[in-house]
């Protein structure tokens, strides 16, 4: 049995390595035949890695429930790939595969951490993918949505204020709402409406008066999040806004003053709020405060360090010694059991996603979609940076989830819908191009 555990450990590293390699090859090589070959490799690696992970867990703790869950996930992956590819042939296949790969890694590690949370995670993922299927179609159908920027903005603030008034407190942050017995984090959904609203408003114009008005609205949103004591969330919204503003106006003065204001705010937060001071303290010297404030980050560093480059193997480590390991600190659990190489590949896959989304933004003819995908790219990658940087002690921990991998319903739904909106943009970009070419071809004979 030990042989099998060790071998699957190495196999998983090889598989994710191969997957990552092809993910970048597709971006670099423009040749269709090469790309096709890489897509096949990536799909193969996805299913093999998913299988290897479950195999390794199953031989150690066999149960029928595990088989059922594995089967369910495989069906979900196959359905997503075939349905999406058939309904929207023009979407980015790499992005779709990356999404499934990250989901699969999340499923595997969550199987090992908490089977109950996994069941929830799989169900919510299935639900989100079903909704996601309609997203590109809705975007095509309701193109007028972009005219309601202000409404989205005000709605977002309204939801956040509502949370402040009637929300539940958990892990020291008041950011949970319970409706019909379902507890969720409205902040996650506001992420989408926020980027949508900012992109729509700046698409209409970037005169100084408008910039002031939008800035006030964005500031209100960020403040509402600060009052929820969710500093990671506030930081993500703030950074996203500053960068969209910068790209929409092309004036570096806005970026500079935005970042300066942000630094000032961070310094003030450090001086004013104890829970900020504690985080910075725990970051500077986690082992000095190992019994209290530094406990979580110390355990995280132990996990990563003990795992080393190759990991100790699934179910062989002690990731559960890290508090909230399944959400904010999931990266450490992966690094411990699947290894440093595996963890680096995950970071590379996130960078890959970032490049692809930015690429859409660079190439799209519609300024609104350009801003929208850019905003999502910044929001997505900054969240990844905060989450991973925090658990490896590169930056102070801000308690942010890792998209697609961390357990948490609201986070998963938002990440999937965000990616499907991006796919929708990709789809419209391509189909418009096809239409234009078509018109051109039809027109050709007449000109001759």
């Amino acid at each position, binding site marked *: 049995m030990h042989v099998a555990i060790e071998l699957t450990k190495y196999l998983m590293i090889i598989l994710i390595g191969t997957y990552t390699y092809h993910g970048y090859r597709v971006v670099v090589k423009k040749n269709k035949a090469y790309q096709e070959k890489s897509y096949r490799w990536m799909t193969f690696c996805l299913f093999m890695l998913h299988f290897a992970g479950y195999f390794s867990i199953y031989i150690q703790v066999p149960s029928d429930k595990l088989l059922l869950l594995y089967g369910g996930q495989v069906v979900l992956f196959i359905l997503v790939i075939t349905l999406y590819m058939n309904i929207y042939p023009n979407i980015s296949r790499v992005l779709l595969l990356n999404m499934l790969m990250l989901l699969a890694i999340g499923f595997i590690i969550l199987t090992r951490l908490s089977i109950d949370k996994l069941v929830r995670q799989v169900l919510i993922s299935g639900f989100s993918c079903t909704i996601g299927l309609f997203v590109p179609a809705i975007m095509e159908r309701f193109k007028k949505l972009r005219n309601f920027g202000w409404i989205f903005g005000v709605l977002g603030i309204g939801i956040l204020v509502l949370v402040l008034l009637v929300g539940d407190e958990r892990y020291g942050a008041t950011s949970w709402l319970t409706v019909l017995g379902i507890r969720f984090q409205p902040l996650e959904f506001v992420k989408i409406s926020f980027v949508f609203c900012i992109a729509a408003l700046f698409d209409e114009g970037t005169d100084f008066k408008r910039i002031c008005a939008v800035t006030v609205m964005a500031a209100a949103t960020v403040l509402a999040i600060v009052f929820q004591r969710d500093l990671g969330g506030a930081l993500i919204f703030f950074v996203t806004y500053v960068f969209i503003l910068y790209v929409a106006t092309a004036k570096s003065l806005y970026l500079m003053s935005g970042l300066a204001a942000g630094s000032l705010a961070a310094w003030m937060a450090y001086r004013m709020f104890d829970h900020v001071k504690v985080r910075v303290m725990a970051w500077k010297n986690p082992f000095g405060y190992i019994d209290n404030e530094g406990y979580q980050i110390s355990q995280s560093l132990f996990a990563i360090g003990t795992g*080393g480059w190759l990991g100790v193997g699934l179910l062989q480590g002690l990731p559960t010694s890290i508090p909230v390991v399944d959400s904010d600190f999931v990266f450490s659990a992966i690094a411990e059991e699947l290894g440093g190489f595996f963890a680096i590949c995950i970071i590379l896959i996130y960078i890959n996603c970032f490049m692809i989304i930015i690429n859409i933004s660079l190439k799209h003819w519609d300024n609104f979609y350009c801003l929208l995908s850019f905003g999502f790219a910044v929001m997505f*990658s900054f969240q990844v940076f905060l989450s991973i940087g925090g658990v490896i002690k590169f930056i102070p921990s801000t308690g942010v989830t890792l998209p697609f991998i961390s357990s948490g319903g609201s986070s998963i739904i938002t990440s999937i819908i965000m990616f499907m909106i991006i796919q929708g943009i990709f789809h419209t970009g391509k189909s418009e191009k096809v239409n234009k070419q078509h018109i051109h071809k039809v027109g050709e004979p007449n000109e001759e």
Partner: protein
Amino acid sequence: MKNKKVIWSVVYIFLGLFVMTLGYFTYYLMFRSKEVVNSTYNLRHDVLSKRVIRGDIISADGIILAETIIDEDGEEIRSYPYNDMYAHVVGRVLRGRTGIEEVENITLLTSDSRSSDALYNDLIGVKNPGNNVVSTLNHKLTKAAYDALGDNRGAVVVIEPSTGKILAMVSKPAYNPNDIEKNWDKLSEDNEDESPLLNRASQGLYPPGSTFKIITTLAYMRENPDYKDYSYKCKGSTEYEGMTIRCSNNRVHGNISLKEAFAQSCNSSFATMGSSIPVDSFRSLCESFYFNKALPARVINNPSRFEMRLGDYSVKEAMQTGIGQGRTLITPLHNAMIAATIANGGIMMKPYVIDRVESSGGRLLKGYVPEEATQVMTLSEVDYLKSLMASVVTDGTAKKLNKLDVKVGGKTGTAQQEGYKSHAWFIGFAPINDPKIAISVIVENKGSGSEYAVPIAEKVLDAYFD
């Protein structure tokens, strides 16, 4: 589109963030993680011990001090061939890791053997042998110190002055780490107040007695550049507001120079000296010698104490402090470091017990190099203190050492204990011109330094130089 260039600049910013994250992660795994995971708070040590057979701890002269053997039932047993001789410095694994077993726990539980066998073992789940730790400890010296201490309570520390290598560190009473489980209740209850679990050598705090006169002399020298002309008329005792400090054995030393006062350990003159030194410069001198802070050593230690400070002392206390009584406390390890610093020309080296780490196949994995802690004295100060310490052996309280072939310098101490017999001290080094070893000996509640500590030092020096 006009903002393409702008988007690219943002791409570079974010790629920069990601590259730095990757860089930090790689740096952590390559250079920092080994030290971090060694923390006793890391609950994963037990996970590692399921994959690796704990490595050996070996003395500098190649003798196994701790090893893991498999008994008839296939159980792993940690075995200490010299029983209680290395109990404190090598330590134990059961009932709370201590000593080298604690400091190098992860090292011992990591296997870096690179052979194909090791890889195969890893695959089929057979445990690989862990890395071995080679200490700086010298078995011959340790045994000599252990035997010389006999049944006394006390400690002996031997340091190589030029490197800071700890060649021997013995504390008594000790316990047998092989029987720790069986005897744990008795040991931890400690009904006889013997503290066998305590490493007296690095954790025991004692009044330094007359060994502190080295520091008093140095402080006096710094305050009085004409110290070579010092003279004092000893009447056998000195008095201040009803407190009398006597010279030992009620001797009257008469007219004496600084050298004679030092060699004869004249309490009257040093008490007077102590009260003449400004307390803040006395204190800062002591703190430059690592009083009031943890020693720069990877050996668990208690900070020595120098309590006098401006606004919190009296003339009486200053007089007592001058002769190493009062509130001043020191560990035997620290006192050995002071002797070693003088031997090493005023440069204090960081003491260490682990020389290198080797794979089970003998491949060098990590070597510890000597490190300077601080320079605390000038060469001329050192030369003068050396001449004083030489006279202690030629004409003073450690005359017994004069019969050795090697020339020794040192200082005895007799730390008085209210209601008990005194603690006997000796610190010193040899050979005086090119010191190879520095030594610190304490015997608890036995009597004078010359009578009880010097003979132990003699046996250890004899073992080294014979």
